[in-house]
């Protein structure tokens, strides 16, 4: 298909591909760690964008799929001895299935009601997991250090986890691109612009939205498993932070919703800003306030995000800034 040759399509993928290769080649722990966090943000923001950017449905509970999928994956690794790769996929699958079940009900709500429902789901999940015995209740689950031996020791395990995350992030980007340039994606964007008109034109909105929800939920599940595996433990408080949902939203908004490049740009910028604020002596205690101010300014003045703004100003560059 001609679309696959457009620069805008391979630029985001190329960026992540090259970045990851660079880290692997350089072999430095610090680069790996920073990039790991970055790739996590990119993955979370991009997967959220598949729902938010293409259908216009704002989920404030995106983190719940990270938490639940991550918990499942971690449980399978730590309690059942499953290998990382399979457990991560299982975690993603659980999130996907859950999204499918919840989605068909919750996606009937529109606008702010949907957003509220997603917050409710996240909180209910956190409270449920805190009580759920097999998942360790309020104290969560732990990995014995010996588990890392199966991967060649702790350091090796960290590198393997990094590579897995890198692959997953590439997968999200490719999925996002595939949706965007498909007939399915066109239907989603029609839903975003005017859901009722889209249905009258023949778009099967309920099914399309649910499928999109499932796709956007799968990746956080995988990413969550990788993250908790690397940390060696998981607790309800860590897994369901409403804050992380909002941060993902900010990254998508900052970079530009509905584009593939947007979440990458947004994640990098946000992470950069956050890093700077946390280490700067003046702003250290104020980083939340400054981030908030930043978000406010974006919402008021550049709601289309950086990439959206550029696309509007430079129509000729539209094919590059996807």
């Amino acid at each position, binding site marked *: *298909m001609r*679309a696959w040759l457009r620069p805008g399509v391979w630029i985001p993928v190329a960026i992540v591909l090259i970045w990851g290769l660079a880290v692997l080649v350089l072999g430095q722990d610090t680069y790996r760690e920073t990039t790991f966090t970055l790739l996590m943000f990119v993955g979370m923001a991009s997967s959220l964008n598949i729902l938010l950017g293409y259908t216009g449905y704002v989920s404030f509970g995106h983190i719940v799929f990270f938490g639940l999928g991550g918990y499942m994956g971690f449980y399978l690794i730590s309690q059942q001895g499953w290998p990382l790769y399979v457990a991560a996929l299982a975690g993603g699958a659980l999130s996907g299935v859950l999204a499918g079940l919840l989605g068909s009900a919750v996606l009937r709500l529109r606008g702010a009601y949907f957003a509220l429902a997603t917050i409710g789901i996240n909180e209910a999940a956190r409270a449920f997991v805190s009580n759920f015995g097999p998942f360790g209740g309020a104290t969560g689950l732990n990995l014995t250090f010996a588990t890392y031996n199966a991967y060649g020791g702790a350091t090796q395990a960290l590198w393997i986890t990094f590579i897995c995350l890198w692959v997953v992030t590439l997968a999200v980007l490719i999925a996002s691109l595939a949706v965007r*340039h*498909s*007939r399915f994606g*066109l*239907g989603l*964007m*029609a839903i*975003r*612009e*005017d859901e*009722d*008109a*889209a*249905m*009258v*034109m*023949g*778009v*099967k*909105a309920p099914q399309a939205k649910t499928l999109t929800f499932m796709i956007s939920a799968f990746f956080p599940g995988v990413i969550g498993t990788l993250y908790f595996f690397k940390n060696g433990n998981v607790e309800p408080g860590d897994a369901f932070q409403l804050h992380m949902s909002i941060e993902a939203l900010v990254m998508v908004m900052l970079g530009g919703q509905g584009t593939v490049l947007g979440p990458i740009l947004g994640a990098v910028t946000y992470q950069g800003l956050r890093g700077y604020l946390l280490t700067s002596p003046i702003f250290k205690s104020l980083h939340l306030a400054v981030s908030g101010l930043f978000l406010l300014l974006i919402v008021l003045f550049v709601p289309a995000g950086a990439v959206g703004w550029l696309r509007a100003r430079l129509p000729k560059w539209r094919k590059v800034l996807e």
Partner: protein
Amino acid sequence: MTLLECNGITKRFGGLQALSEVTFTITAGEILGLIGPNGAGKTTLFNVVNGVFPPTQGQVIFRGEDITGLPPYEVARRGIARAYQVVRPLNDLTVTENVMVGACFGRETLSLSGAASVAGEVLALVGLEHRADQLAGSLNVAQKKRLEMARALAAKPYLILLDEVLAGLNPTEIDAMLETIRSICRQGATILMIEHVMQAVMSVSDRLIVLDYGVLIAEGTPAEVVNNQQVIEAYLGDPKMTERLMAG
């Protein structure tokens, strides 16, 4: 061949009786005009046919299949398309993309490239080919109405529901739109159109049906309908003015 049959369509919204026992048929290839005073239930009838909401009672039979109560996207797949009175363009998509949505999800479920070529043809038909890459939100009202038509056409429907597509157009634009409607009909589509611009709907329709307070009060050729006493009282008002309308 009977394309669409509406049997005893009744619709109540709480205490309000919007439609009562509306029964009529549409033959393939004809242009049927739907007229009536404001609030008569014309758009409600469209909504029932098109699946936006089901009737309280009654059936809608399309090409021999009972489609009563099916959701709008199922109705669209079976070949009924609609152009809205208050236009609803997909603002952040280009004109071409707008039309492609109609093409991809209508009667023929085309791929993106197939849809793109259909879009090109249809845009040429309605005269919007020069604005193909413009964002739909940036068009003026007349252009948006053409886009609305183009989207409906791109779905290659058997039946097109046109809801006051002439509203807000000047006489030249009206003539052009009527010509487009006639050519659509020549290419095989059947049209059910709600209109208030009397001269236009009289001149282009093969037959007319008249609604008043949700009840079908007349059915027939324009000449028959216009001389119908009930219609005149309800709607046209003055017999002499009617004559003038028919003549002019």
